């Protein structure tokens, strides 16, 4: 009786997983392809370390962009904001043109600048009802302009500053192992503990074998990754920063009130408001979070480049949005996951890095990058919500085949 009105509602979670699964397959296919093209270097520890390193700054942006998009907004300013935060940190640290402050002071200030500017954009969006597309398009220009001023002399960061290590150094191999193993243990404990607690309260949960295989698969991936990067110099510090950010945002999106509210606001703003959600404040909040992440990404970018330049982070807002969208975030709002975005970022990074190795012309690289974005989203839509003409075409094809 309970199932009478249910057509395919119960299958939705499975569908989502199917989608992630197909993305993993795309990734594996690409890896195999590039391995054949590039040779054994492609699967070396150095290659892995580089891949994980190159994606850091815009994947951090993409994680924030996911939440912004989920809330029904968009942020086009993050690339410029990243540059401004990088420039701010660099000028504060640089002893020649700037203040020569210690990184321990400059970095928090840069992140704070990002947070405040993000919050201000959220404020304009939420309280003055200026569409976020317009506000952040404005921010895109304004922050770039300010970057050109602040970064007028392209300030460098001295070698002795600890922040440079984030960009260039590696976690020592044995500590890398400890981090990897600790991550696996935490994962196992958390999953088993929640599962046990659910069972005790008589709440439906995944069967034990599925939970365990989940733990095993993820642990294997983590340990394999550590093994690989340790074959080179170890886990890059910046990669570690990225993972910390991703895990934090994963938790925010899944387990906090704030995260839940963002999905509700993006899914149906009117219903959210009538449910007593203070919509305006949450929107300011998500833009502030985005700004903070732009600050973090800016600092990482500065560390990678040991200073700032006027055109730091150009196009990064678009990479961020692309990664989120490839990862299944809906531009209509209300849908999207951090894990999906991580996979989307990985797809983008793989394409970019792979093409670098095959030394494709720059113009062609851009063409491929853009095509991958449209293809990935296109395939997703075609499999999830095929348009009628495609359904008919498929049907006719199948009828022909069955006749033949």
């Amino acid at each position: 009786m309970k199932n009478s009105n249910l057509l395919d509602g119960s299958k939705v979670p499975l569908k989502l997983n199917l989608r992630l699964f197909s993305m993993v397959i795309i990734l594996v296919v690409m890896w195999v392809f590039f391995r054949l093209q590039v040779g054994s270097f492609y699967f070396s520890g150095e290659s892995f370390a580089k891949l994980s390193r190159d994606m850091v700054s815009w994947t951090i942006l993409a994680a924030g962009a996911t939440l912004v998009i989920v809330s029904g907004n968009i942020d086009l300013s993050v690339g410029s904001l990243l540059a401004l935060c990088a420039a701010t940190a660099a000028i504060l640290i640089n002893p020649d043109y700037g203040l020569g402050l210690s990184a321990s002071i400059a970095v928090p200030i840069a992140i704070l600048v990002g947070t405040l500017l993000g919050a201000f954009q959220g404020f304009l969006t939420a309280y003055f009802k200026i569409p976020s597309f317009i506000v952040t398009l404005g921010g895109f220009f304004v922050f770039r302009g300010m970057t050109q001023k602040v970064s007028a002399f392209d300030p460098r960061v001295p070698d002795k500053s600890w922040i440079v290590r984030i960009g260039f150094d590696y976690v020592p191999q044995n500590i890398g192992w400890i981090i990897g193993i600790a991550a696996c243990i935490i994962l196992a404990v958390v999953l088993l503990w929640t599962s046990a607690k659910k069972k005790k309260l008589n709440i439906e949960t995944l069967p034990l074998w599925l939970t365990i295989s989940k733990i095993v698969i993820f642990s294997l991936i983590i340990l394999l990754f550590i093994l690989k990067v340790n074959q080179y110099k170890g886990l890059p510090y910046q990669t570690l920063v990225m993972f910390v950010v991703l895990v934090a945002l994963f938790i925010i999106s899944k387990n906090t009130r704030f995260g839940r509210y963002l999905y509700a606001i993006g899914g149906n703003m009117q219903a959210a408001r009538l449910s007593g959600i203070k919509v305006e404040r949450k929107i300011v909040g998500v833009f502030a979070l985005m700004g903070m992440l732009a600050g973090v990404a800016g600092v990482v970018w500065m560390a990678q480049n040991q200073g700032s330049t006027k055109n730091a982070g150009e196009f990064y807002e678009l990479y961020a949005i692309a990664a989120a969208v490839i990862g299944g975030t809906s531009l209509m709002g209300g849908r999207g996951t951090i894990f999906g975005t991580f996979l989307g970022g990985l797809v983008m990074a793989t394409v970019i890095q792979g093409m670098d190795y095959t030394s494709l012309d720059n113009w062609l690289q851009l063409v491929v990058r853009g095509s991958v974005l449209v293809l990935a989203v296109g395939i997703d839509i075609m499999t999830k919500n095929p348009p009628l003409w495609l359904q008919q075409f498929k049907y006719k094809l199948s009828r022909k085949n069955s006749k033949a």
Partner: protein
Amino acid sequence: MTEPILIMQDIVKDFPGVRALDKVSFDVLKGEIHALVGENGAGKSTLMKILSGVYPHHSFSGSLTLNGKKVEFNSTKDSEKAGIAIIHQELTLANNLSVAENIFLGDEICKFGFVNYSLMVSEAQKLIDNLQLDIDVRMEIAELGIGKQQLVEIAKALKKESSILVLDEPTAALTENETAHLLKLLKELSAKGKSIIYISHKIEEVFEISNRITVLRDGQTVKTDLSSNWNRQSLINAMVGRELSDMFPKVQSEIGEVLFEVENINVKHPQIESKNILSDISFKLRKGETLGIAGLIGSGRTELLSTIFGAPPGLRTSGKIKLEGEEINFQTPRQTISGGLAFVSEDRKNSGLVLGLNIKENISIVHLNDFCKFGFINENKEILKCEKLFDQLDIRASSINVLVETLSGGNQQKAVLGKWLIKQPKVLLLDEPTRGIDVGAKVEIYNLINKLKLNGVGIIVVSSELPEIIGICDRVLVMKEGKINAELEGGSITQEKIMENAA
């Protein structure tokens, strides 16, 4: 009588895991109004989607015969060409275009790609005048009330010279007046030889208008018979499949002291500076009382509820609300929710539910704080509470993790109720609580209202269905043009009295 113009024979349609239609046969005679009734999920919409080509020819088994010839529809275009016009429950008009442009949408009067606007307007006006509708075709759709929009939709279908007209719940959003007008129009059309398939939950209408009635239940035809051979009770029993003794199971609750007071509310029209949407509204509500608010659409009923709830549709220039003698702020919904108010809004898809979230997430959203510590959601606590409501309200779905967009109307409505009843409110505001849902679910909702009443909750109900207002309310306020025009109590609550004061 004449030959059937349309015969649908042994239609079987399967969805993954469910047989939606099981050998359904259905026919329509020329010039008849054939009512198709059944609970939500009985298969009415599926049957009509087959007729309109939404489900292409190969996706079901059975045959369609139109004017004696077998037909295969592969798209909605095919069925339109064959002369079948469907007017859906959800209107499909372009809000930003004029009435004339909508009527000619996709079929504009053109020369060399340029639209002859004036000719289109005059043609459209002719059509509208023929139907005796009081509409200026140059107006934008958005400026018309929902009732008139419905009539425009019908005019649009008639323009295509369709021989079969399908109307899916056309009166769900209409007032009594508009409904009467529509029914009259349909009768005239059928007298001119058009065949009409009429889908409705409103039994009175069905009896008033139809020549024959077919009842579907769980994807099967229960019976097709002349309307005169059915009666109210036999029809309801056929739909529900069980005896439904009383549609409005009224309980006599102890009406206690004054619980809630509204004083002197004035709200300005958002666009028209000089106009008020609500003027000088004051009333009192007692514990355990059900107060009905009747009136035509546009009389300010919905606006009154949302204003009380802290979401006024325009600028509120004055007004106070008091709960248990204490004045409470009502600037935002959060304030009124904390005070103990709950508001089940009229349009569950636009303002009630977040369709992309699942049942659990929708139910817990209002009082999410109760499941949180330091901003982190205690998922287990949330699940246990939501499952309890899920069972109590008897929401039909496999689990609380099902997305609400996949639920039927009645179950969605129960989910909306669930989110407001997760904590018992002191005052419950209900706006069209049974709109577009089936008889069985309606009775469940009435029972729920009664239960809350016995617990001392004060309830305010806005409804366009007068039998419902009369059946469940202790007292009725009749609104007209933003003011309370009359207050009716006890025996004086009758259809006539209400209409007299509303129109």
